[in-house]
C-alpha cells in the first residue's frame, strides 16, 4: 500500500476527472447540494413568515385589549335612594338602586336628554361597572352614604369599540350598534375630558364577566397557577422517582422493557383521554368536586409524568458511569451514589424536561373540558379546591362569545398566555445553558 502514497498520480486518473462527463457529474452534484440548501432555507423562511404572521395578527388585534376608556362620574350617594331607613344592612345595601344614581348623573352631563328614549340611549354609554364600583364603595364603608364621591368606571363595550375604531362611523346608522346621537355625546365627553383613555386594569385584575369591558384574566391566571402547582407537586416526585428507579436500580428484563414501552406510549396519548380518565376516576369514583384546580392539576400531572420520566432518564443516562463508580469505589451505597452524586448532576436536564412538560400542560384545554374547568367562573379562586378556569380555557370561552369586544380580549389573552409560555421555555433554555456540564 505504501507505493500508492509515494507514486505520482497516473495521468489516466486526472483525465478521468477531467472528462466532460465527469465535469457534468460534478456540476450536477454541486447543483443538488445548492438546491438542498435552498430547500432548507425556504423551509426556515416559511416557518419564520408563519410565526411573524401569527404574532403580528395577535399583536395588531390584541394590543387594544390592554387599554380602555374610562369615564369619571361624581355621584351623591342619596340616603333616600340607597337605604331609606338607615339600616346599614349589607344585604339591603347590596341590592340598593345604584343604577338610578349612575343614570341620573349621566343624564345630567347633557342638556338635550329629556325623552325616555334619549335617556336609555345615553345610559348605554356607561358600563355596569359604574354600578359595581358604587356598590363596592358603599359596602366597604356604609357611613359614606349621604356624601358625594367620585368614581372612575369604564365606558360600555360598544363605546369602547367605537373609540378604538372597531366600529365604522361611516356605515348606515341602523346597521351600527351605536347611534349618531350616541357618537355625538361620546365625542363631546371626550372633548370635555370626562372620557379618558387609560390602562385596562380590569383586564389584569378581574375574573371573567359577560360584560367585555369588565372581563379580566386574573381569575384564569390564578386558576392556571393553582393547577400548575398541583401538577408540579404530583408529577415531579413521581416522575423523578420512577426515572431514578428505572434507570439506576431496576433490573433490565422483559418487565422493565414493557414498562419502558408503555411510558413512551403514554407520552403520545391524546390529552382528551387523560380528561376522560380524570372524569371516571377522580370525579365519578372519588367524588371530588367539578371545576377544581386540584382535579385539573391531577389530570394534567398524569399527562406530564411520562414527559418528565423520559427527560429525566435521558439526563440520568448522560451522567458518566465514572461518577457512579468513583462514589461506589469509596464506599458509598448505591442509593448514596445516586442521590448524592448522579441525581444532582442530572438535575438541570430533569428541570428542563419538567419546565417543558409544565409548559405543555399550561396550554391544555381538552382534559379540562371533561372535568368541568371549561366554565364561566367570575369569582377569583382562592385555593386549589375553589372552582377555577385556566388561561387557554378563558381564550376558548371568549373566542366563542358573541360580543365584538371579546375579539380583542381573546387576542389579548393569547398574548398573555404566550408571554408565560415564552418565559417558561426561555427559563428552560437558560437553565440548560448555565447548569449543563459536558463531559
Amino acid at each position, binding site marked *: 500500500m505504501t507505493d500508492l502514497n509515494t507514486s505520482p498520480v497516473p495521468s489516466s486518473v486526472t483525465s478521468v476527472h477531467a472528462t466532460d462527463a465527469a465535469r457534468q457529474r460534478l456540476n450536477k452534484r454541486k447543483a443538488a447540494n445548492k438546491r438542498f440548501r435552498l430547500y432548507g432555507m425556504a423551509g426556515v423562511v416559511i416557518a419564520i413568515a408563519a410565526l411573524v404572521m401569527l404574532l403580528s395578527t395577535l399583536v395588531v388585534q390584541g394590543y387594544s385589549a390592554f387599554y380602555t376608556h374610562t369615564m369619571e362620574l361624581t355621584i351623591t350617594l342619596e340616603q333616600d335612594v340607597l337605604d331609606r331607613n338607615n339600616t346599614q344592612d349589607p344585604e339591603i345595601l347590596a341590592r340598593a338602586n345604584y343604577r338610578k344614581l349612575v343614570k341620573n348623573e349621566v343624564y345630567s352631563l347633557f342638556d338635550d336628554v329629556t325623552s325616555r328614549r334619549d335617556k336609555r340611549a345615553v345610559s348605554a354609554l356607561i358600563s355596569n361597572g359604574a354600578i359595581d364600583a358604587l356598590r363596592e364603595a358603599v359596602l366597604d364603608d356604609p357611613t359614606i352614604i349621604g356624601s358625594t364621591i367620585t368614581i372612575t368606571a369604564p365606558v360600555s363595550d360598544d363605546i369602547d369599540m367605537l373609540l378604538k375604531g372597531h366600529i365604522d362611523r361611516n356605515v348606515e346608522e341602523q346597521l351600527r350598534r351605536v347611534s349618531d346621537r350616541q357618537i355625538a355625546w361620546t365625542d363631546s365627553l371626550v372633548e370635555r375630558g370626562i372620557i379618558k383613555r387609560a390602562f385596562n386594569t380590569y383586564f389584569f385584575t378581574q375574573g371573567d*364577566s*359577560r360584560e367585555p369591558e369588565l372581563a379580566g384574566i386574573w381569575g384564569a391566571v390564578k386558576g392556571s397557577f393553582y393547577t400548575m402547582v398541583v401538577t408540579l*407537586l*404530583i408529577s415531579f416526585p413521581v416522575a423523578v422517582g420512577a426515572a431514578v428507579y428505572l434507570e439506576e436500580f431496576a433490573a433490565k428484563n422483559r418487565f422493565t422493557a414493557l414498562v419502558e414501552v408503555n411510558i413512551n406510549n403514554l407520552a403520545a396519548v391524546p390529552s382528551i383521554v387523560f380528561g376522560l380518565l380524570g372524569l371516571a376516576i377522580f370525579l365519578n369514583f372519588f367524588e371530588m368536586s367539578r371545576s377544581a384546580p386540584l382535579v385539573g392539576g391531577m389530570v394534567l400531572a398524569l399527562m406530564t409524568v411520562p414527559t418528565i420520566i423520559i427527560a429525566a432518564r435521558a439526563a440520568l443516562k448522560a451522567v458518566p458511569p465514572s461518577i457512579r463508580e468513583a462514589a461506589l469505589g469509596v464506599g458509598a451505597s448505591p442509593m448514596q451514589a445516586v442521590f448524592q452524586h448522579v441525581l444532582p448532576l442530572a438535575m438541570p436536564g430533569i428541570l428542563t424536561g419538567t419546565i417543558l412538560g409544565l409548559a405543555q400542560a399550561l396550554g391544555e384545554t381538552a382534559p379540562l373540558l371533561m372535568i368541568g374547568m371549561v*366554565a*364561566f367562573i367570575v369569582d377569583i379562586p382562592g385555593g386549589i*379546591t375553589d*372552582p377555577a378556569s385556566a388561561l387557554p380555557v378563558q381564550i376558548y370561552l371568549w373566542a366563542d362569545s358573541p*360580543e365584538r369586544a371579546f375579539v380583542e380580549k381573546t387576542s389579548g389573552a393569547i398574548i398573555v398566555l404566550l408571554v408565560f409560555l415564552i418565559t417558561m421555555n426561555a427559563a428552560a433554555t437558560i437553565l440548560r445553558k448555565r447548569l449543563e456540564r459536558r463531559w
Partner: protein
Amino acid sequence: MKLKAIALGALSMVTVATASTGAVARDQIQIVGSSTVFPFATAVAEQFGKTTKFKTPVVESTGSGGGLKLFCAGVGTQHPDITNASRRIKKKEVALCAKNGVTDITEVLVGYDGIVMANAINGPVFNLTKKDIFLALAKEVPVGGGIALKENPYTMWNEINPDLPAVKIEVLGPPPTSGTRDAFSELALEGGAKKFPFLKALRKENKKKFKQIAHSVREDGVYEEAGENDNLIVKKLADRPTALGVFGFSFLDQNADAIKGATIGGVAPTFDNIAAGDYGVSRSLFFYVKKAHVNTVPGIKEYLAEFTSENAFGEDGYLSEKGLIPSPAEVREQVRSDANSLATFDAAVLN
C-alpha cells in the same frame, strides 16, 4: 429513604385532598348545559353573584344533551344543580333522571332564540323558503318532480329557485354535535322536506326514515362545518359575500353592520318577528332545576327569582340586550310563579 418519603408524601397529599373535597358540602350553584343558553345563564349568574350574598354560580357549556346527562346522573353535591337546554327535555331523559333518583325537577322557560341564515352586508339578498334550504343542503333530494331521491345535484342557488341569486351555494354552519344544528335540521330542513307530498307521507308511516332523509346534510363541501357561536364565521362571511352562515340570532344582532339575515318564508329574522312567533326557525330555551338540591345548595331559589325577574328575562331586561327574545308577558308571569313555587315538571306534557 428520601425516595420513599417523597412518594409517601405525594400519595398522602392526594388522599388528604380527596377526602377534604369529597366531604365538604358545596356552597356554590353548579350549572351545566346548552351553549345557546350559556350567554344568558352566565349574565344572570354574574348579576346574581354581585347583588346577593351568595357566590357566583359556575356555568359550564356542555351542550343540551351533555348537560342533561350530567344533570340526570344523580342527587348529591358532585352532580350539577341546574342544566340549561335549547330544547325541551326528552322522555328518555326524564326516565334516566328517575332511574338515578332525580324525580322532582322544575322547568323554566327562558325565552326564544331564532336561528338565522346570514351573509355579508354587501353580498346578494337572499329570500329563502324552507324548501330552498332543504334542496340546497340535504344529501339526497327529489329532482325534477320525481319521487326518487338522488344525490344532490345543485351547485347554484338559482338552479333551485329562479328567484334566488345566481351564485354558488356555500353554507357555513354548526357541526352535528350542536343544539343549533339539531334545531336547524328539525325546523328548517324537516320543514322543507315536508313540502314534498311523498316525503310528508313517508313521515307518517316511517318517521325514522324521514328524519334520516331530512337530517342528512350533503358532504360534498357545499356545507362547511364551522363552530356554532363563532366570531370566525362572521369574519369568513365578510370575506366571502355569497356564502351564508347558520347561527343563533344573538350573533346577527351583535354584528348587524357586517352581516344581514336572509328572510325565510318571507319573514325577516328580527327581534319582533321572532318574539311574535312569525319567524319560522325559532325555538324555546329552557333550564331545569333539581329540587332535591334546593335545600342543600344555598341560593338556588334566589337564582330562580333573579332569572325570572322582569329586570332579567323581561321585555327590556338585560338578557334581551344579550340577544334573548323574551316570551310574552302572560307566559312570563306563569313561568315566574312556577319557578318561585318550584312547580314539579310533569313528564306527561311530553309527547
